[in-house]
């Protein structure tokens, strides 16, 4: 019975999913109008049809492009500001609180002003995604620098390292794990920003697909959009995990 015990969670999970899909099918057939809750098969047909017509892939491509470049810009900017904030106590005391404030400003609230300033091209969307990633990565990088153990700094100085050497050989490696964690949670926030931007102003992408389907009351389309967005989000984090864990000089920093 020991072996069956280890596979038991999978059986329970499978039973749970089957029950859920069955309940969904029953509810949509007998209880809830189809415009509110379409039948699971209808949703599946919709997904297949969209995949065949290419609409799904065009939307995914547009969204992934935005998220990726926005995120990359945000990470680069965030690491730089984070290092500055963490290293220079005086700057941190003055600028740090501004970042605490910015963290609370939802990316979606910036969409209208970005549209006003930069129009409805790709640039404002990238800016919004980069903005929230920047804030998240900055905060975690600065925390990492601040929490470098004092023992390490003293040891480095005892061994006669110069200020610059301490920065490269002690502070950067000690901070790396915080940066990696910040980058990972930045992915989640980048997707939130992506949907926010695509809901309000865009011509293609998954967010647009979801919003558009609401106008036309195409609920299966909406569900396909939401599910692909979820899969894309968790897929991105999975890819990030695989990459950072596979590269040897990065994986040793994934302790947090």
């Amino acid at each position: 019975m020991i072996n069956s015990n280890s596979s038991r969670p999978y059986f329970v999970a499978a039973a749970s999913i089957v029950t859920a899909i069955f309940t969904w099918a029953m509810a949509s057939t007998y209880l809830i109008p189809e415009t509110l809750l379409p039948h699971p098969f209808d949703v599946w047909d919709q997904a297949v049809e969209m995949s065949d017509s290419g609409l799904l892939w065009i939307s995914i491509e547009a969204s992934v492009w935005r998220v990726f470049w926005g995120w990359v810009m945000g990470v680069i900017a965030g690491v730089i500001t984070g290092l500055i904030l963490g290293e220079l106590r005086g700057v941190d005391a003055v600028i740090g609180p501004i970042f605490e404030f910015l963290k609370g400003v939802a990316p979606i609230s910036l969409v209208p002003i970005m549209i006003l300033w930069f129009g409805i091209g790709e640039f404002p969307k990238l800016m919004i995604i980069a903005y929230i990633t920047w804030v998240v990565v900055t905060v975690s990088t600065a925390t990492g620098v601040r929490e470098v153990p004092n023992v390490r700094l003293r040891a480095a100085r005892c061994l006669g390292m110069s200020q610059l050497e301490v920065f490269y050989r002690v502070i950067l490696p000690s901070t790396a794990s915080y940066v990696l964690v910040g980058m990972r949670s930045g992915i989640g926030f980048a997707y939130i920003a992506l949907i926010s931007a695509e809901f309000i102003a865009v011509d293609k992408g998954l967010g647009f697909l979801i919003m558009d389907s609401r106008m036309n009351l195409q609920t299966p389309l909406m569900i396909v959009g939401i599910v692909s967005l979820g899969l894309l989000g968790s897929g991105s984090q999975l890819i990030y995990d695989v990459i950072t864990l596979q590269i040897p000089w990065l994986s040793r920093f994934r302790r947090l």
Partner: protein
Amino acid sequence: MIRIGRWGPLYGAILFFAMWQVGADSVGTPLLFPGPLVVWEGFWRLAETGEYFEHAGATLQRLIVGMAVGIPFGATLGCAMGASRDLNAWFDPYVRMANSTPAIALIPFALLWFGVTEFARYSLVFYTAFLVLALSARQGVTQVPYLRIKAANTLGVVGISAFFRVIVPSSFPAILSGIRTATGLGVMVVVAAEMLGAANGLGFLIILGRQNYDPTLIFIGIFSLGVISLVLDRGFQFCIERFMPRWSVKRRV
């Protein structure tokens, strides 16, 4: 070295407003980029008629109602999932799925189901709080030191009473930090929901500013959001340190 430690945030605020003013001056048109003085004037006009407080109050109310319902339900599910492997296996697929789907993506769905109603907004905040709390409570329960449970067992506290007297209190710091996370995400969701369908609230104020080409309103909205989340976050932390030092996360160090 100048000693700035204590007054840092004040200098920060001065710097922030100064940069804002300089930026606005260099752009030159308040119709594109209003400076802090213009925004303050606009805020004063809104505050005088009480309109501002109506919007801010509506946002806060939505946040508080959704959180107040979502937190206990989410924490209960999370504790149950942490304690029972079968329950965990049963609910885990949905928690994973929901966790990778941002609540903002569900706004059109909520509006479809519940219409443009107060209930739709409550349900979105509820969803966010429920999910975050389920995850953090589960993590808290599974990370209770094994030694502590063993010790309780030795002292005769077993089974269900060990669950309530040892495991739940031990997971409290995780639950509290979950509430903090949920508050931050909750603000984002409320605003998004208000921007996509509401007749009041700070998110509506921002959309109104966009429709009327009045960036002052947008800036009032953005600024209020930052202030509200900062105050809620700091206030919550302060309450823990002051009234429940036992559960303070800082004690971990």
